[in-house]
């Protein structure tokens, strides 16, 4: 037998009443722990107010609310409003005022209770806000239905998103999630922990049940809503279980308050003459967004493939290609033999040639006219417009061979300085050790070391989740999520001309896929402890000051790099971190000054370079090391 349809008014009444229970419990809790508002409490406004912009009307209002007496007064008002909604009255004025009070005070008190707030607070705010809208437009069924539809869709979304995001994680479904939570003292329960520890099958079954229940929430829109009540009953059971095990009692009334609108909006009901416009708009907007995401993905790919527009292309012997830019090549302009040094940049993992933009500009602006280097930046195969044949370049040896072939092509018989950042530093060392090109020096900018995963705990811990992050990003971007990806600070730190292409690469799946392949190659290579290659030229090792501060082992590894070169120096760039040493204009400027000095010292600026001659040595290692000691 089908249950009788749930009416519009009844749905609204149930929703606002159940949610009022959450507000009642919540304000009671806040009043019971008023020590939290005083010094030593986790809602001490004297400290918390610093987290908000000052000198505005909003700040003045928050400061007033932040007074313990005012906060307590607002909670008393909230309790009165909650009781008003729980009272057996259908008086519109009382219900509107109560809903509006709860919604407004929830928003006003949110910054006040920022530390200690949870999911039930956001649900109860949402419900009371929608109830306010519904009560305001109570005489117009279309507005009440709009509010109930919004509550219903948020309810379904709350379960669906929670489920599918768990699917994207590593722990749910392994038995480790529920067991892990149950063992904690904050959210766990010792009896549950004792029951499921050592029973991975039971833990897995529980986890899969929870995730499945959450993921399938949209089924309530099928079968004329006949599945909604059973679904709501199952979800209520889940919330009751969570309340018992995790002591999250407030979640029961808050989430269950969304069940009435879920039932109302999915039932096959002609008596209410329901207005489904919100549901339809969301459906069409969803379809439109899917189309927009596909379009945006195609546009991003086009920007990546077009890159800066002045790239040249080299096809390597394995048919992969390398797109590269030549900046300041006077030979092509004058048609004469170029004698100025050639500086070839090697990108790090998951990095673009645009990362070098500040360094390139500084380097060319501060060098003497006759010694101003020609600069080459490139996209390794698989990055940007450079093509990559699947199944190739799977080892660090393959990648280094490709770099070697590229350097030999662009260098010809000219003197070359290789500059590499991060993994690009290690690649530059490998290239310098195996190339026949006239490499006069190598600059290692906060470079990777093949022993870093073994010797640096910080590096090892960071590396453990790196691949998962790359895979997740590649999959998300492939699915068209690129337009949701914010603009990272390193992009906005670059010169304006470089930002568009850099951002497109960041939002394109290709770079992340290439990074997964290169990272796998790196991990395999580092696992064999290959050691550093011996260089036949001097090296300039640049360490970012924050790398050195946060991981002294990394600094030791950088010092070792210098020992594998025929002289050179090791310099710390003050204030820089691993990325900002390239992307911050000031830090990159300091790095560029060091590089320019090194280039000038390595190559005779008179143009009388001799392939067989020993390059002019930079300041001795010991002297620069001493400088380092003095600044440490």
């Amino acid at each position, binding site marked *: 037998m089908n249950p009788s349809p749930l009416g519009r008014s009844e749905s609204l009444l149930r929703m606002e009443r159940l949610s009022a229970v959450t507000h009642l*419990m919540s304000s009671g*809790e*806040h009043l019971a*722990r008023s020590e*939290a508002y005083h*010094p*030593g409490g*986790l809602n001490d406004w004297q*400290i918390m107010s*610093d987290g908000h912009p000052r000198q505005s009307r909003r700040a003045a209002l928050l400061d007033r609310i932040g007074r313990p007496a005012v906060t307590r007064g607002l909670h008393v008002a909230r309790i009165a409003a909650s009781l008003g909604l729980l009272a057996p009255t259908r008086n519109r004025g009382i219900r509107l005022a109560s809903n509006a009070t709860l919604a407004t005070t929830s*928003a006003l008190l*949110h*910054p006040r209770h*920022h*530390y*200690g*707030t949870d999911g039930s607070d956001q649900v109860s705010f949402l419900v009371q806000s*929608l109830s306010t*809208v519904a009560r305001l*437009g109570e005489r*117009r069924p279309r*507005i009440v239905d*709009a509010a109930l539809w*919004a509550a219903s*869709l948020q309810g379904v*979304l*709350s379960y669906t*998103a*929670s489920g599918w*995001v*768990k699917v*994207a994680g590593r*722990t*749910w479904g392994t038995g480790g*999630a529920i067991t*892990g*939570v149950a*063992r*904690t*003292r*904050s959210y*766990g329960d010792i009896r549950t*922990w004792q029951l499921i520890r050592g029973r991975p099958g039971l833990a897995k079954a529980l986890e899969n049940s929870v995730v499945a229940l959450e993921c399938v929430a949209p089924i309530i829109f099928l079968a004329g809503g006949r599945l909604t009540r059973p679904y709501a009953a199952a979800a209520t059971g889940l919330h009751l279980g969570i*309340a018992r095990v995790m*002591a999250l009692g407030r979640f029961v009334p808050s989430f269950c308050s969304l069940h009435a609108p879920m039932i109302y909006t999915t039932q096959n009901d002609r008596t209410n003459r329901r207005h489904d*416009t*919100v549901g339809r*708009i*969301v459906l069409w*907007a*969803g379809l439109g*967004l899917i189309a927009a995401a596909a379009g945006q993905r195609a546009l991003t790919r086009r920007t990546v493939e077009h890159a800066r527009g002045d790239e040249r292309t080299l096809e390597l012997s394995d048919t992969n290609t390398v797109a590269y830019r030549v900046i300041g090549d006077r030979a092509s302009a004058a048609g004469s033999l170029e004698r100025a040094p050639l500086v070839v940049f090697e990108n790090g993992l998951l990095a673009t040639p645009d990362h070098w933009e500040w360094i390139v500009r500084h380097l060319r602006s501060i060098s003497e006219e006759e010694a101003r280097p020609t600069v080459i930046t490139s996209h390794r195969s698989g990055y940007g417009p450079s093509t990559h044949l699947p199944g190739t370049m799977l080892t660090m040896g393959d990648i280094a061979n490709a770099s070697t072939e590229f350097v030999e092509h662009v260098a010809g018989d000219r003197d070359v300085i290789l500059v590499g950042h991060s993994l690009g530093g290690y690649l530059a060392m490998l290239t310098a050790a195996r190339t026949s090109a006239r490499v006069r020096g190598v600059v290692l900018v906060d470079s990777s070391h093949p022993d870093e995963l073994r010797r640096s705990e910080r590096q090892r811990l960071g590396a453990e989740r790196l691949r998962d992050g790359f895979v*997740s*990003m590649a999959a*998300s971007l492939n699915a068209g*999520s690129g337009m*949701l990806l*914010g603009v*990272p600070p390193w992009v906005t730190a670059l010169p304006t001309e470089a930002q568009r292409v850099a951002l497109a690469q960041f939002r394109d799946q290709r770079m992340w896929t290439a990074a997964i392949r290169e990272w796998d190659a790196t991990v395999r290579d580092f696992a064999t402890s290959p050691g550093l290659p011996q260089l036949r030229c001097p090296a300039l090792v640049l360490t970012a000051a924050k790398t050195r501060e946060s991981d002294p082992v990394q600094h030791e590894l950088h010092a070792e790099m210098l020992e594998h070169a025929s002289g050179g120096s090791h310099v710390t760039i003050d204030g820089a*971190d691993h990325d900002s040493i390239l992307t911050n204009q000031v830090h990159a400027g300091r790095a560029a000054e060091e590089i320019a000095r090194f280039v000038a010292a390595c190559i005779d600026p008179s143009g009388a370079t001799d392939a067989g001659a020993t390059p002019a040595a930079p300041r001795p290692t010991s002297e620069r090391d001493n400088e380092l000691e003095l600044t440490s």
Partner: protein
Amino acid sequence: MNWAITRTVSRRGASLLGPLVVEALLASWVVATTLSQHPNRGFDRLRPYDRSGVLLPNWRFFAPEPAIHDYRVLHRWVGKSGETSEWHESNEIGPRRLAQAVWFPERRTQKGISDACTEMIGAVHGSLDGLHDTVGYRLVRGHVEAHIRRTVAEAPDGFQFVVVADPGHDDDDEPNYLFASRFERWSCDG
């Protein structure tokens, strides 16, 4: 006559337009919420626009990875004569009771500690610049100092605290020490 028609039409227009605006706004809000649930927080491009922090619900409960550790804060103090105390718990989590399924005000404090520690540890993993000025650090520092004030007869010279990721009831796993504060000089004698 014309005026009466115009008035009737505009009333009808307003009566139709009003609900449509409400429907469009609510539908947009649902769509914006949907677009703000990506497992990777890097895709939360719309959230910075919600300055209130309450308009775009976050439905990613215990996901993608659940918290499987307790944040424990331990402290020790240095007395006026230079002696150093043992490590003490700054915020002991008591045993679970059935009634807490309905009434659990202490949960707010535990969640507050967890939120403040999460913020502080996040700052530690990034740049250390300004760590001691973060709200999270200062709240935990204040919490520890208040605890010492309540439990120690004579005001000490200063104190230090550590944040530990603790496996809770699981004795087979080791606690992980996440952060040790600098020596904090006693700021009040109250």
